[in-house]
């Protein structure tokens, strides 16, 4: 099932209620506003802080349970900050046929990083994704929204080095 859950102890500090309320107010008039707002909060803060839940429930006149249920259903909505760079590795059938699992194994063996994890310095998060629509140029990946085709071990090494080297 979808969704990352955050323990109370992990609640991050970057949350800004005023800014969050502004984002919500700007989009609350839309039909079916919750998903567009959650995307916008993710964009604005890098994740959806659980402290948004009561604000959303109030603004959209739905229950907190409904808001929580929606956030936790979708893979995209993270309740904790991600790495500064996000690498999505496709692990669906077309990419399997071109050896995407060997990329996952390489990432673990060489960089001690598995899908679902973030490097300790928060430079890079790696996620599993099922299909990026680049199935004739597998294995595919997406780095910070940019699609990559025919990903190989060398390129993967470079991505990890660039991401972890770019930390400020």
């Amino acid at each position, binding site marked *: 099932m979808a969704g990352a859950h955050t323990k109370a102890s992990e609640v991050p500090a970057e949350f800004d209620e005023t800014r969050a309320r502004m984002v919500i107010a700007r989009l609350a008039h839309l039909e*079916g506003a919750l998903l567009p707002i959650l995307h916008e909060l993710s964009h604005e803060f890098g994740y959806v802080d659980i402290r948004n839940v009561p604000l959303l429930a109030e603004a*959209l006149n739905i229950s907190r349970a409904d808001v929580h249920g*929606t956030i936790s259903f979708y893979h995209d909505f993270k309740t904790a900050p991600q790495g500064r760079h996000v690498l999505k590795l496709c692990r669906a*059938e077309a990419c399997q*046929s071109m050896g995407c699992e060997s990329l996952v194994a390489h990432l673990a063996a060489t960089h001690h990083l598995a899908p679902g994890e973030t490097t300790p310095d928060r430079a890079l998060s790696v996620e599993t994704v099922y299909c990026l629509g680049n*199935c*004739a*140029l597998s294995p595919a990946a997406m780095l910070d929204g940019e699609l990559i085709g025919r990903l190989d071990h060398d390129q993967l090494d470079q991505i990890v080095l660039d991401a972890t080297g770019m930390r400020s």
Partner: protein
Amino acid sequence: MTTKIFVPRDAAALSMGADKVAEALATQARQRGLDVRIIRNGSRGMLWLEPLVEVETTQGRVAYGPVRASDVASLFEAGFLSGGDHRLGHGLTEKIPFLARQQRLTFARCGVTDPLSLDDYKAHGGFEGLAKAMALTPAAIVEAVTQSGLRGRGGAAFPTGIKWRTAMNAVADQKYIVCNADEGDSGTYADRMIMEGDPFSLIEGMAIAGLATGATRGYIYIRSEYPHAFGVINEAIRSAESAGIIGKAIMGKGPAFHLEARLGAGAYICGEETSLLDSLEGKRGQVRAKPPLPAISGLFGKPTVINNVISFTSVPWIMAHGASAYADYGMGRSRGTLPVQLAGNIKFGGLFETAFGISLRTLVEELGGGTHSGRPLRAVQIGGPLGAYHPAHQLDTILDYEALAAIKGMVGHGGIVVFDDSVDMARQARFAMEFCAVESCGKCTPCRIGARRGVEVIDKMIAGDHRAENRALLEDLCTLMTDGSLCAMGGLTPLPVMSALTHFPEDFDKPAMPLAAE
């Protein structure tokens, strides 16, 4: 004289460095004092050639590919601006066999035009279908779509005309047109390609659906894995609105049609039409029980036509050229064309639009060139993660809805994923169950629990634990999931599992492997 150079903006081309190529072409043309205009077109669909650079010459467009930024200098030196010979040259684009052998109706403009140029779109027959529909009654539009024989291209193959008729006849203060652009099936990219390469055709198809049913609002639900398509569609909507094609009045004189693109959030199940509707409403993307049909009670409980991208983008051609012209393509109950997507371990992967009736072998071996690895082909999976695995000896099957159903497979959204002989089919069967477990919406028990039990049972079989008994258990579980699931997710997951078991039993009978999987 300005020479036109085409460098695709399609995400697949970008994934192979198209932006860098475009940049290098612009820089070096400037340095050489050459007058060029770079047009960022859609993809022609010959994806193994991406980035495919085309130059407009007096003979026609000449193709070069796959071009890397480092090849650009040598292209100029070879005189590619006048179609000069180069090791990456393929001659006239239209003469490349992979393209020349297609019957491009829906994708006729894709890769040819600037996707965001309304002038280009009109110059290539755009809005002719909408103009014809404007002169017809709703019933006559629905009749044309029905007569064309168009069936839902998303995968379920339900007759599009029947959906439209039901929504047309429903009485309500508000009706909706919803486009399912949640193309989650691995091995498919036709929706993405046409949204990026010919977005106005989707807008046109949805506007025609609006005219036919009396719906004045439309939503395009695009998966978040497709940020490029989302960007192009949004731009296209804005420009169609400011040109007065949609918005307050279709083509300035018709009824209103307001269109908005919405982003999914990474949930495969939202490709199922009723969970997509719940997702659009801002809820968990859970499947609804049918009836009521969406055409009666869909988005926000209102009558809703929900169709796949390719279903909508097929409609303008049908309206412009006539239902019978479309129905003349294809065979049996599979009318018209299908954009087949060749994917996975294949040498020449790409989109091949063709009338139904072509053989799988022609597609995979002749056009696709066999495996990318050069190893023997062992299996093809057709129709995404819920589609069956077929062994090489079934490749002589004809691609149409009924012929594939007869060998316990399905066309689905038209994706064909090729596997070479290194594939372990027990692992593929396990993955089918695992994927279902990860992506199940959780509403019905056969899918939610069945998929997890399926993974466990297959793990035991791989581990050599009571293989015969577990095989019987797996077959029983598959029957239950097929018969008892609320939607195609749980209902069709048994298809890849059972096809792997039926056609590749030897892979379930290998020396025992330890239980720890992947």
